[in-house]
């Protein structure tokens, strides 16, 4: 399962990198290829390219904020999840999203 996503939080200082890292770590554990872009205090870090976006099975937005560059994800299933949920239970978030995406395909 290929996953790309963006994390963002109000101050962009701590929760943004935490969520990104937590999801990437959880992805490694369960065999998902996860790349998270951070839109935080340092601007866009670990930016997702158009190619990466289009190759993904789904897009995970770990934020309830405005996200830059949503047009990259056009035509892809986009799932928004609360950023704190992504920090707390990254593995469950990935699995649940994957399941939902699979179910929709059928």
């Amino acid at each position, binding site marked *: 399962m290929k996953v790309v996503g963006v994390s963002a939080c109000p*101050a962009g*200082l*701590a929760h943004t990198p*935490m969520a990104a*890292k937590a999801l990437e770590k959880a992805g490694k554990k369960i065999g998902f290829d996860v790349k998270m872009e951070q839109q935080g205090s*340092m601007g866009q870090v670990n930016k997702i390219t158009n190619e990466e976006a289009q190759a993904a099975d789904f897009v995970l937005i770990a934020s309830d904020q405005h996200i830059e560059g949503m047009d990259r994800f056009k035509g892809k299933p986009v799932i928004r999840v609360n950023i*704190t949920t992504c920090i707390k239970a990254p593995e469950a978030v990935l699995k649940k999203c994957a399941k939902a995406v699979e179910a929709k395909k059928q």
Partner: protein
Amino acid sequence: MNDLLNENTVFLNVDEKDKDGILKFISTKAQELDITDDADALYHDFLEREKEFSTGLQDGFAIPHARTNNVKKVTVMYLRNKNSIEWQTLDDQPVKYIFALLVPEKSAGDVHLKMISSLATALLEDDFKNTVISSNDKNELTRFILKIMKEEN
């Protein structure tokens, strides 16, 4: 003593009763250390941030932060409180270990922001948390946290 975290910003015997007390403690110390000119305004910045959503994490940790004009230089404080206090956390556990992040609104500099980012992601690691919870040597602890903050994440 120019680092954003140093022995003067590490407090291992804090004795506050609630979150409010902690935020006031941080703000008062920030004024004493010349990180802010206005402890009261800084305290309100912290409160505002907490209102957006709580900065409580898991395993007794919290990361209150303020990115505001009332902060003059990027600073990280570490506080260990004597008793656990209420803090709306991800695992509903009370808080005892606090990293306060103080960042000026403008031109904080990517080096420092990167260090804060490394600190935040280190808080996902049990090894880091265990050391921060148990170490009683201020000097050693300061060096340990700084080292982690300077590592690429």
